[in-house]
């Protein structure tokens, strides 16, 4: 990942003048163990201020542990974590950051607006709780106690709690988990608005489309380590011969036969049951060969697409595992 960093004059030859030169989040060599299990294993990342960074990885990759160390909920076993230029967990950081813990949080018997009023009272210049309740579509559940809100509603209330204090940096741990498509869309719009207003956003997700559409930078982690990082465009950048033809058909086709029918240098794999991918330089002749080979096998090639790599492919290549595990 190439990044121009104001605090690295050695690389640039001069110091860039910036109103907010400190990284929003700077993690280096982070290690966290739970008993004999190493959850985070030497993780490094830097988030520039005013950007959206997505921590992408399967469940159990170490995303939440990393974020909770940044938020000050957990202590690192090794390495350094600085947030807005201060060590993570520093008391004076708390008013400056907004936190949406995974799964939300609220008194079981409290109503959404009461919860939001309580969190608003902790801030100097809070947003208007009533307005935020409406924006997040919780206006229809004003008398419902927290424990009877749906998972998605609890998530939206938690997001409201994270934003109400007008923070400089927001941590969103799986912000769209349990949300319906409209609510997800709304969260995406909110994240975009936060970024436009100069708020830094660090979010975790295991949805690659979320990372792809929201993030300036994506850090893919697996088993507590960074396996790739860069902008979504950088991560999915195509070399000319790095294309894919994907199709679905009956599971268990003999891919070696298809390989033999195709020109040299093309690879054929059955990625998951019935999902096939041909990788290499895809030209019209290749498409024709694949469809006629399928016709010979007496199968219909469905959902046939020619595409560049997605973040999911990148992840799969790097880890050999599905993102949504």
């Amino acid at each position: 990942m190439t990044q121009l960093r104001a605090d690295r004059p050695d690389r640039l030859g001069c110091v860039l003048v910036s109103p907010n030169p400190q990284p929003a989040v700077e993690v280096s060599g982070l290690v966290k163990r739970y008993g004999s299990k190493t959850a985070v294993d030497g993780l490094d990342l830097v988030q520039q201020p005013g950007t959206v960074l997505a921590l992408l990885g399967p469940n159990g990759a170490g995303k939440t542990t990393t974020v909770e160390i940044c938020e000050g909920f957990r202590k690192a076993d090794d390495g350094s974590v600085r947030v807005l230029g201060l060590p993570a967990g520093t008391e004076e950081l708390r008013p400056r950051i907004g936190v949406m813990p995974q799964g939300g949080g609220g008194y079981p018997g409290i109503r959404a607006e009461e919860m939001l009023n309580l969190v608003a009272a902790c801030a100097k210049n809070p947003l208007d709780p009533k307005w935020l309740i409406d924006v997040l579509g919780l206006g229809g559940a004003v008398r419902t106690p927290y424990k009877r809100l749906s998972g998605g509603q609890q998530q939206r209330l938690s997001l409201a709690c994270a934003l109400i204090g007008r923070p400089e940096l927001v941590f969103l741990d799986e912000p769209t988990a349990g949300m319906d498509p409209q609510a997800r869309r709304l969260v995406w719009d909110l994240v975009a608005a936060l970024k436009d207003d100069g708020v830094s956003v660090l979010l975790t997700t295991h949805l690659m489309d979320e990372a792809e559409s929201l993030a300036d930078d994506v850090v893919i982690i697996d088993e507590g380590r960074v396996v790739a990082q860069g902008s979504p465009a950088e991560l999915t950048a195509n070399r000319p011969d790095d294309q894919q033809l994907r199709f679905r058909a009956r599971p268990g086709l003999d891919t070696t036969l298809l390989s033999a029918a195709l020109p040299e240098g093309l690879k054929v794999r059955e990625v998951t049951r019935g999902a096939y991918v041909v990788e290499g330089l895809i030209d019209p002749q290749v498409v024709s060969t694949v469809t006629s080979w399928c016709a010979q096998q007496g199968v219909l090639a469905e959902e046939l697409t020619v595409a560049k790599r997605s973040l999911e492919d990148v992840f799969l290549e790097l880890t050999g595992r599905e993102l949504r595990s």
Partner: protein
Amino acid sequence: MTTFAPGTFKPSPGRGSLPRMLFVHARTEAMLTLRNGEQILLTVLIPLALLVALALMSVIPMPEPRVGSATARIFALAIISSAFTGQAIALGFDRRYGVLKRLSASALPRWLLVAGRVCGALVVVALQIAMLAVTALVLGWRFPLSGLPWVVLLIVLGTLTFGALGVLLGGSLRADVVLALANIIWFVLLMVGGVALSVPVGFVHLLPSAALAQALETSVVHGTAPGVGPVAVLVAWGVVAGALATRTTKLT
């Protein structure tokens, strides 16, 4: 697509004023307790019913004036119900629903998280005692006013001690385990812990329940200062429970 006016989320961070945070937090805690039907049953209705029963029926032997002793003992029970059982159960479920973590992530200082709960509990206890006192007066209780400062002091001390014990229980175990244990302990303390009647067994006097009931009886019935012994027992339990609770209480 939802759009927002530019500058809507422009950062303007800062911590709210401490008195206001404390006020809103304590008000929230008290309001949630008063809205919870099971809590009202435990903290108001059962003590009220027992007060009437103890004052009017002579099934349980009790020193005269009967209504005075009954009032003192039911004050103790009300404090135990609210500060110990109610607080433990509320904390157990608050943890399950992640509210401690949620609030710890806000600008609310940790000490205020405790202070707000304590103030909320004191408000609830004050309301309980007021209701019980009015009922007792109707039943013929005559309160020697010289005991008022001591009664207030004992109510605060009892709330803090049993609150610390409630946090110790509710802060570390699973919510359903807390629910069961807190109710069982409440019942045991009521019956044989020196609350409903004084139990003439040595170690019972070392229980905080017996100490609180005995101390309150002195001040409520005779209007005099409680003995040093029961107060020392209450303080000791409170300090030990508080110290342990700071180590064992978990956010979730």
